[in-house]
């Protein structure tokens, strides 16, 4: 059982009228790769800066290795940080950038140079130590920023949307590098992003943050397959979410909901469902061109949009009573093309749908 290297207890932060963070509780396990995922303005960057020591909490405690560091200056927290825009010192070479923290901590020249060489090799920039930041590409600058943050061997590495400034190809490549680094270095990585693909592919666990509090936390696979709330379902997993009436919740982790006059027996997620209203999560995989299961429900949708993506065709349709639905249909088995405006029958598998507590959008 891994121990918690970082604990946030009851963190609250208010700027003037706005409550940026509301009683945030979080535990980060040692050695894990945890991503804080949330939309713009959710407070995730503020939370990260608090862990780094640049922002003070109004209330609450930050504990690092079971030590209260809420008011300890950034330099004394032994935390590495990589910023959104790398923030390399423009007047120092890559090697000098990496060695900056070591110099500040009083390392001797020999020890520094050895360590800098080691770090350059670790991030794959062997011969580029003498270059200035402006002579490096975006991806290379990012590696220097990583090497700089890891140079003095911190146990916790903070990253604030480090891949945001890179183009798609580079982002995928760097994501792979980050995973490799995480394995090789063994430190705990705390990553902030608004991009759910990044969160899904990089993390051991994802903490979904909205409006200043953590809505849900779990492994990407379980959050995807069993989203505990409507927001997680739509924001993280990209599933369809429609409001329905709850008829009855059953003991065997299923529930009956009523939608457009029809009663459907669906699964329930991690959260308890009760009351009159609920949200029905319809994953894209629950929508198919043919009836896969006996209980499959046939619905006629009017095609609003279709997007050819190679393997699949992503189609958006308007279903009576359900609203807009997005599904991925296998491009090969899609015999004739679906034209926008036509009505197409699709089949919904209720067993793959999940009822969650009602949430206003």
């Amino acid at each position: 059982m891994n121990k918690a290297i970082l604990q946030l207890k009851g963190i609250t932060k208010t700027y003037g009228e706005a409550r940026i963070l509301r009683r945030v509780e979080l535990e980060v396990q040692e050695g894990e790769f945890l991503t804080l995922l949330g939309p713009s303005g959710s407070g995730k960057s503020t939370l990260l800066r608090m862990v780094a020591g640049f922002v003070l909490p109004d209330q609450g405690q930050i504990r690092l290795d079971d030590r209260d560091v809420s008011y300890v200056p950034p330099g004394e927290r032994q935390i590495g940080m990589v910023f959104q825009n790398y923030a390399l010192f423009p007047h120092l070479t890559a090697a000098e950038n990496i060695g900056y923290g070591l110099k500040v901590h009083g390392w001797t020249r020999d020890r520094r140079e050895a360590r800098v060489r080691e770090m350059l090799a670790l991030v794959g920039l062997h011969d580029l130590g003498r270059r200035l930041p402006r002579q490096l590409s975006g991806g290379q600058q990012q590696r220097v920023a990583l090497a700089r943050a890891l140079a003095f061997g911190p146990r916790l590495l903070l990253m604030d949307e480090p891949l945001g400034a890179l183009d798609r190809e580079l982002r995928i490549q760097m994501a792979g590098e980050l995973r490799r680094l995480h394995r090789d270095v063994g430190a705990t990585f705390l990553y902030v992003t608004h991009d759910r693909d990044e969160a899904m592919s990089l993390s051991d666990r994802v903490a979904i943050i909205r409006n200043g509090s953590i809505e849900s936390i779990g492994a990407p696979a379980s959050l995807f397959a069993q989203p505990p709330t409507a927001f997680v379902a739509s924001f993280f997993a990209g599933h369809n979410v429609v409001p329905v009436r709850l008829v009855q919740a059953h003991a065997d982790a299923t529930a009956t909901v009523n939608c457009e006059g029809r009663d459907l027996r669906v699964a329930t997620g991690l959260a308890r469902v009760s009351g009159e209203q609920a949200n029905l999560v319809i994953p894209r995989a629950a929508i198919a061109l043919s009836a896969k299961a006996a209980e499959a429900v046939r619905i006629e949708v009017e095609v609003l949009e279709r997007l050819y993506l190679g393997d699949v065709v992503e189609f958006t349709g308007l279903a009576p009573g359900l609203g807009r639905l997005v599904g991925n249909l296998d491009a090969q088995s899609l015999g004739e093309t679906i034209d926008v405006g036509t009505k197409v029958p699709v089949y919904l598998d209720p067993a793959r749908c999940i009822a969650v507590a009602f949430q206003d959008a």
Partner: protein
Amino acid sequence: MLIARITRGLATTVGSMALIAIIVIMMIPVVVIVVMSFAADRIVIFPPRHWGLDHYTSFVESDYWVAALRQSFEISLPSAALALVIGVPAVFAMRNTRNFPLPGLFQAIGASPLVIPSVAYALAVYVFYLDVHLTGTIIGVILIDSALALPFVLLIVGSVYDRIPRELELVAMSLGASPTRAVVGITLRLMLPGIGAAFIFGFIAAFDDAVFINFVGGPTLETLPKAIYDSLQTSMAPLINAVATILMVGTGVILSLASYWRYTLSKRSSEASDKLRVPANG
């Protein structure tokens, strides 16, 4: 269509000719002075018949003129330095204070020496100095000259400061530097070329002043501009052509260097900033 093209062509030609005419008219006095400075005739005639460096040697050998030059430096250098001492911390203060009171007002005050009519300003300063017994003192002149230099410092240092990403200080601190070390070692260090350029512009502003030195300087403080002005009143020593040429060339060279310096600095930091593309706020 053709009419439009003809009119446009005509306008461009007339415009260019007007521009050339204006430049020529402005440059003629300058050219005359420079040419006359190399004259070696006994009487003042143009164009000169004999050439020589007589006026330049007279200048260098004249105690009066050399003293005036020295006096100019003795006043302008401390004035520029004082403007830096006030201006650099002011820039930090104005940029880093949350809810800085009336930032527009302070910017206006900082720029005012460039905007207020010099003679009115100088008269007001003179009356004020009478009260505090600063007329005719070198301190008094330095104080007002530093006010002349200050707008340049605020402008140049301010724009250099704004180009430096704030995250650099945060990074330095996260790596263990104290706030002081981060500000001095990183931010200030990156601002040095800009501070140098600001010093030069401020120095030139103080050096060139011919108004305030006359109002406030009293009878004993002779700076170079004042000496030139006085010499125009008393006699038309052709020596001043040499002095004027030296001033123009000197100022021109220094300002070109300072501008070039600023240009390469801003080019470098904007290249760096281009790489620091900030994605959508999250």
